[in-house]
């Protein structure tokens, strides 16, 4: 089974749908037109660029190139996590908390999957490493940013409760435990929903892409199951790490709530 190539006209027709939507939202004064068009433009440019980069890297499977692109992806994800916080940490922590936790979880899970499960040779083979890391980082980024935002927002809004509990002699871990638990749930809900709905409500993007690309359906299914599990683990470990670092950062050594470690809006 071969891939049916897409022409520029095919893509233009799809773009026309976005333009119609943009015109409709402009007419309805939804204030979405600008961001919709910018996002559509960004997706076109970014995917074309990454396509060229990947073509180059696939042709020269050397680890420094893979490491470089992985670093760029990680830094971009870290920036996105930081940008999505209503009350982000001040200074380097604002960027560092999300980036460090994504680095630990996504990279560890990707390396494990490449070397032990997929068995690519060499393990950093870019055809496997880059897409796998991309999917893990993308989902971990969502989970980490949701979880972190819930934690810092919760601490900000429930300041009087947290301080009341501190005054009664509870330590910082006990005081933040409720918000931390809720933050973990908030961060995990998207991937849990994805896993629960996969195959019933939705056909996951990667599997659909593989099938459209001509891969045998059962192989595509197996890869999708693998990816779902890896994403769930990577996201979960990433959120756990981010919440552990951020929770500690919200308190000082004397178990005082330090909201001055967060930026005000």
């Amino acid at each position, binding site marked *: 089974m071969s891939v049916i190539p897409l022409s520029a006209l095919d893509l233009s027709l799809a773009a026309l749908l976005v333009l119609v939507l943009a015109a409709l939202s402009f007419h309805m004064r939804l204030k979405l037109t600008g961001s919709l068009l910018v996002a559509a433009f960004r997706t076109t440019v970014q995917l074309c660029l990454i396509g060229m980069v990947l073509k180059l890297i696939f042709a020269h499977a050397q680890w420094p190139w893979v490491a470089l692109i992985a670093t760029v992806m990680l830094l971009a994800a870290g920036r996105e996590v930081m940008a999505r916080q209503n009350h982000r940490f001040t200074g380097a922590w604002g960027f560092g908390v999300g980036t460090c936790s994504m680095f630990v979880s996504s990279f560890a899970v990707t390396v494990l999957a490449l070397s032990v499960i997929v068995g690519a040779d060499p393990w950093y083979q870019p055809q496997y490493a880059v897409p796998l890391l991309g999917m893990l980082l993308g989902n971990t980024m969502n989970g980490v940013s949701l979880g972190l935002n819930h934690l810092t927002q919760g601490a900000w809004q*429930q300041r*009087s*409760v947290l*301080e*009341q*509990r*501190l*005054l*009664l*002699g*509870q*330590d910082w871990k006990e005081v933040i435990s*409720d918000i931390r638990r809720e933050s973990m749930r908030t961060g995990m809900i998207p991937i849990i929903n994805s896993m629960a709905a996969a195959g019933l409500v939705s056909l996951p993007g990667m599997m659909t892409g593989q099938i459209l690309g001509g891969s045998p359906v059962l192989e595509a299914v197996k890869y999708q199951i693998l990816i779902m599990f890896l994403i769930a683990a990577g996201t979960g470990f990433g959120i756990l790490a981010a919440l552990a670092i951020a929770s500690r950062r919200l308190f*000082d050594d*004397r*178990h*005082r709530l330090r909201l001055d470690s967060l930026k005000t809006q």
Partner: protein
Amino acid sequence: MPMGNGLQLHELRFAGFGPFRLTVGAGECVGLSGPSGAGKTRLLRAISDLDPHEGEVSLGDLACSGVAAPLWRRQVALLPAESAWWRDLVGAHFTSVDEAWLSALGFDQAVMAVPVSRLSTGERQRLALLRMMENRPRALLLDEPTASLDADNTLRVEALIRNYHRQQGVPVLWVSHDPAQLRRVADRRFVLENGQLLEAGPQVAP
């Protein structure tokens, strides 16, 4: 006045306030008043180590910097002007509540099954006092503990605190905007104004 288990502030400074030097003897109640924004609440927060500060606070031989903060706060307990609650039912905030204290403040055990959302501000404040006292603190920092109470309940709270701190020999620092109340409960009274603690004489303020 015995000082053995007294509360002492040694050159306490915080957020541009201070230095404060004060000793509240064991079993003594010191009243504190002053205009809004003078730093009364901040002073109590610094003593309970809830805000960063310089200098030292000690309770008898125990120095604040020498013990873990949660332990210090269980011993030197602060009752904030507004109580906060984090579980649905009142009882979920208590481990074992003293029946005599409950009835002294006009409650019985049934209140433990009541949702916090159904309590009035005054009821919450009285229960917050009991919740704090459950730790059997060795010093009390009270920030307008009766501000939201009617006259009868104000007297109930005053009586309970008086009995506790006199029987247990506990120092009390009591912030209030009500001069008559401070005359009733305090052995000495201070005014916090312009960053200074000034001892007030008996003629001070109605």
